[in-house]
C-alpha cells in the first residue's frame, strides 16, 4: 500500500436472517487509497475484518449491474463511487432501498426478474423470417429512436430511487418499463398490443407520479422516467381511442 493511505469509516447496514430480528449498523475502519471504490472498501472488510459480510459484485467496471447499493442514501454502483469523495466523513452503505434484504447488502430481486419476464423483452416480429430471407433490416434513424432505452444493465438503482415502487411493489417500475418501451418502438417489433395490456393495467404506468429520481440515478442515462411518462400518453390514447377504433388495443 502506498504512503498516502488513510483510514475511512464505513458504516454498513448488517442483517443476518438467521440471528437478527432487524438490520443494525456496524462501523468498520478501512485503510484506503485514492483509487479505491466503495466496492473495494467493502471487499476489504470481507477479506480482512469480517468474512461474514455478504454483497454482490462482478465486473468492477459499471457494466454488470450487480454492485448497486445505497451509498449515503443514494442508489449508486459501488464500483464507480469512490471513497476519497467521502473522506474524512463516514460513508454509509446499505442494501438497495425498497427491496427486501436477503442478507446484509444482498437484496431479493425475484420480483424484478418476474417483471422483466412479463414485458416480453425480445422482438416479436410481424412475420418470422427464415434464415434464407435474411436479417430484419433497420435504418440508423430507427435504431437511434430506441437505442438509449436499450442501454439498461438491470442494476435496479432506479427501483431503489422510486418511492412509488417502495409504496407498491406491484408497480412494474422504471427499468422494466424502459425495456418494454425499447421493444415497443423498435421498427422490427410487432408486440406492442400485447405489452400495452401491462402498461394499461393497475400495475402499469399510472402508479408513477413523475418523481424523476429514477432517471437521475441511472448510471447508463437510460432515462426510464421518460419511457414511463411517454407511455402514460400512449396508455391514455389507448384508453380513449378504443371507443373510436373497431379493434384498438383494448381487451
Amino acid at each position: 500500500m502506498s504512503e498516502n493511505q488513510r483510514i475511512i469509516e464505513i458504516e454498513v447496514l448488517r442483517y443476518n436472517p438467521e440471528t437478527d430480528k432487524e438490520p443494525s449498523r456496524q462501523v468498520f475502519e478501512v485503510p484506503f487509497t485514492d483509487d479505491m471504490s466503495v466496492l473495494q472498501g467493502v471487499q476489504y472488510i470481507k477479506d480482512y475484518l469480517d468474512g461474514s459480510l455478504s454483497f454482490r459484485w462482478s465486473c468492477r467496471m459499471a457494466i454488470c449491474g450487480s454492485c448497486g447499493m445505497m451509498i449515503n442514501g443514494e442508489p449508486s454502483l459501488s464500483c464507480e463511487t469512490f471513497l476519497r469523495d467521502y473522506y474524512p466523513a463516514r460513508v454509509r452503505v446499505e442494501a438497495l432501498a425498497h427491496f427486501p434484504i436477503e442478507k446484509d447488502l444482498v437484496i431479493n430481486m425475484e420480483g424484478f426478474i418476474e417483471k422483466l419476464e412479463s414485458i416480453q423483452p425480445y422482438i416479436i416480429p410481424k412475420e418470422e423470417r427464415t434464415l434464407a430471407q435474411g436479417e430484419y433490416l433497420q435504418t440508423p434513424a430507427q435504431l437511434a429512436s430506441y437505442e438509449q432505452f436499450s442501454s439498461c444493465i438491470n442494476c435496479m438503482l432506479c427501483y431503489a430511487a422510486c418511492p412509488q415502487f417502495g409504496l407498491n411493489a406491484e408497480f412494474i417500475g422504471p427499468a422494466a418499463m424502459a425495456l418494454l418501451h425499447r421493444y415497443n418502438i423498435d421498427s422490427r417489433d410487432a408486440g406492442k398490443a400485447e405489452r400495452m395490456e401491462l402498461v394499461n393495467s393497475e400495475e402499469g404506468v399510472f402508479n408513477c407520479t413523475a418523481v424523476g429520481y429514477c432517471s437521475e440515478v441511472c448510471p447508463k442515462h437510460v432515462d426510464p422516467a421518460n419511457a414511463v411518462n411517454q407511455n402514460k400518453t400512449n396508455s391514455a390514447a389507448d384508453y380513449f381511442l378504443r371507443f373510436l377504433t373497431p379493434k384498438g388495443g383494448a381487451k
Partner: protein
Amino acid sequence: MNKRRPYVRPMAGWWRKNPFFVEYMIHEGTALFVAAYALILLTGLVYLSRGEAAWNVWLEGLKNPWYIAFHWLTLAAMCYHTYTWFKIMPRTMPPVIVGGKRLPDFAITGSGLAVAATASLAMLGLVWGMAR
C-alpha cells in the same frame, strides 16, 4: 427449514431522507394552493350569481390583509408550480428532433416557460383592454 427471512424496510418518512424527494413533496404541495384558489374563485362566482350587493361583499373581502397575504403566498406557489411543471416536461414527452438532433431538456423547459410568460402578458393585456 428455510432459513431465508427477507427483511422489508419500512417506508415511513421516505420523503425526508433525500433532498430530491423533499423538493418533490414541495412541488406536489403546490396543489393545495391551486385547490384553495379554485375555491376562492368558485365562491366569487356564486356571489356574482346572487347580484351586485353580494358580489361587492366578496370583492371587498379580497382586500382583507389575510387574503392579500394568502394571495402573495399562492402567487409564489403558482410560480413554483409553473417552473416545476415545465422542468419535468422533457421527461414526459417524446424526444423533439430538430435538424437531426435531439432538442436538449433546457430548450424544452425554456420554451414552456416562455409560452407561460407570453400567455400571462397576453392575459394581463386582455384584462386591461377589456376593463378600460
